[in-house]
């Protein structure tokens, strides 16, 4: 049963914290509009994927313990990222299979942790948002959200409720963009091929805006689109986290990778 005013701990994610705090505020806004009480524990840094996916289990466990402790006591833990949510939900418990007490706490955290958009739709029953966005958007399905958490329809459902927004599907939307955490700097040439293909697919839609639910993928795709100078209707393709649009916060906020002076819609 969902409490009337669920107490939600926001897992900001390290990339949002550093690169795009507005996504965090968009998440807070959406959660509060949906009736949640939102808190942001100070003792959070990162979910630990950089060390986890590099084989450093020791540091990963130390970081996971910290997250587990910081988010104890909330009704829910919500993150504006499928990737970090996947880490907390699908991978933390397996890190502590040899420690029954921590394992139980990790499982308790895993069961309460959700990705932002699917939390709004699947847990809180939100079916529409109060936002306006004048543009044609296309949506990239980030891998972890799609394949670990079954997030596919949820963002599209809410985007359809945004006034003025036209959604056009991205061919190959489920194909990895080539970010992959440290992969993109360890194998830049392969990552480049993947994100070049992605940029071409995005350009082919003719959409003026690209949305996704994970900032890592968005930084990668925005960086490639701007490096290639991909235009839609004579202007650079605008790249945003889906929460910015759903929260109606795109008006004052330049798109990802765009100069602050260029007035964006």
């Amino acid at each position, binding site marked *: 049963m969902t409490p009337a005013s669920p107490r939600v701990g926001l897992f*900001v994610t390290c990339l949002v914290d*550093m690169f795009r705090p507005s996504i965090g505020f968009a998440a807070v806004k*959406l959660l509060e509009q949906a009736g949640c009480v939102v808190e*942001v524990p100070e003792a959070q840094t990162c979910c630990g994927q*950089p060390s986890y996916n590099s084989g450093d289990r020791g540091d990963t466990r130390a970081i996971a313990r910290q997250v587990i402790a910081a988010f104890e006591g909330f009704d829910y833990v919500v993150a504006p990222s499928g990737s970090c949510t996947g880490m907390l939900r699908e991978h933390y418990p397996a890190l502590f299979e040899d420690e029954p007490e921590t394992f139980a706490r990790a499982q308790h955290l895993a069961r309460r942790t959700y990705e932002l958009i699917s939390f709004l739709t699947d847990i809180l029953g*939100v079916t529409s948002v109060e936002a306006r966005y004048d543009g044609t958007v296309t949506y990239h399905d980030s891998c972890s959200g799609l394949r670990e958490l079954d997030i596919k329809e949820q963002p599209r459902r809410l985007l359809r409720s945004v006034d003025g927004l036209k959604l056009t599907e991205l061919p190959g939307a489920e194909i990895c963009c080539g970010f992959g955490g440290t*992969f993109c700097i360890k194998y830049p040439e392969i990552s480049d091929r993947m994100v070049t293909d992605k940029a071409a697919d995005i350009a082919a839609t003719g959409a003026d805006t690209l949305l996704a639910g994970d900032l890592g993928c968005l930084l990668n795709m925005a960086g490639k689109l*701007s490096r290639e100078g991909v235009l839609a209707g004579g202007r650079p393709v605008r790249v945003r986290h889906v929460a910015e649009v759903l929260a109606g916060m795109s008006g004052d906020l330049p798109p990802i990778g765009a100069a602050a002076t260029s007035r964006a819609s």
Partner: protein
Amino acid sequence: MQPTSHAFKANARQALDDGVLRRALDNMRGGFPAKRLAAVNRLPEFEALRDAGKTIKDHVLENLDFYLEAFERNVVARGGVVHWCRTAQEARDTILGICRTVDAKTVTKGKSMVAEEIALNDYLEANGVEPIETDLGEYIIQLRHEPPSHIIAPAIHLLKEHVETAFRAAHTQLDPNRPLSEPRQLTDEARAILRAKFQSADVGITGANFLIAETGSTVIVTNEGNGDLTQTLPKIHIVLASLEKIVPTLEDASTILRLLARSATGQEFSTYTTFSAGPRRPGDLDGPGEFHVVLLDNGRTAMLGTEFQDMLRCIRCSACMNHCPVYGAVGGHAYGWVYPGPMGSVLTPGLLGVAEAGHLLNASTFCGKCESVCPMKIPLPKMMRHWREREFEAKLSPSAFRSGLKLWAFFAKRPALYRAATGLATRLLGGLGRGAGRFRSLPLAGGWTSVRDLPAPEGRSFQSLWAAQRATRRPHATTLSPVSRAAQ
């Protein structure tokens, strides 16, 4: 073949620069995944079959000794011989020894990845026995003196123009002005040339998709029928198979066969599914005089009981590589050994060691597509991560990367220090990037900015902004919850 997996980066760079390879890979990416999806969609019980297949294989792996011994008893009962080989060298010597008993000059071969794994062709050639590949793709790459780039479509990296060139160079006895630009002309020519080889071969060697314990029979699937001619016409049939190919019953083989072709090529069944059980019996119209099964371990039993045991469920369908964006970018040769793509990135470190295969286990974004299409539900990304743990523990990853990671973890484990450091870095980068909104290059971030811009941070960390406004901010009004809307 000499592994070049350690040179994956250089191999990959070369592959990425190869425009012709790119065309060939684009053909593949446009083909296999769509055909598999259509086949899966036509079979409502496909997911249930995956579970059934996994259950069969898991059961076998827990009872491998029992089923292998039963298999041997039943092969022997039908007049065949089973040779147990721990290493590639033992398998090569065993096969050469059998060839020598009939003073074999030529050996026809059906497609076998295990034969590639033990580098059988080179060994036979060096010892005076001529191996002739009879699968069209294998025949083409044999003529070109190159290894397969894919486990079921060995010549997938080639265009038909390459095949024409190879045939004209090899088949010099034919009219040099013959037309050879159409696929049909190419297959007809290969067929005519190979027909004579089939008839004169002393020994036929095939692989096996399954070994069936209850019957002592072996199974191959092909689309060309070349396997049937390879194993029926010569005096001796040798089946070369790794020991995890065993299944308990014919029924089990049928279950997994329903998954195999659908996952591989999108066919419901391969054109030929051929069962072999022992040598020719009195009264049989055809068949070999001797039937040998060479059972290869070569490092596989060392994976039993470890976090890599699940890999031994693999049925070599190739769905993982057909759907892998990294394989799709660099092709199979870049992986530098026999098994490319995600299944290779898990199996190769098991067979060659992490030091040789370090790049393979790292060159994945963990996008998870491979696991989602694997008919045996093998958790490929998870096992690549386990290999990375082995690599990290053995201090085999590059030292600069390790120290960078350790430095990052030092901060990540100290939230107050982390907040201070990221708060500062964010302000600095945000200030520097404000004008353009992005960086075209940045010291220490060359891996990123060599191929794409780095969007600039907004300028303040979320934590610092939140701390500044927490005391005074007022929450947003509840406007979205179904409850509040119903009340409006």
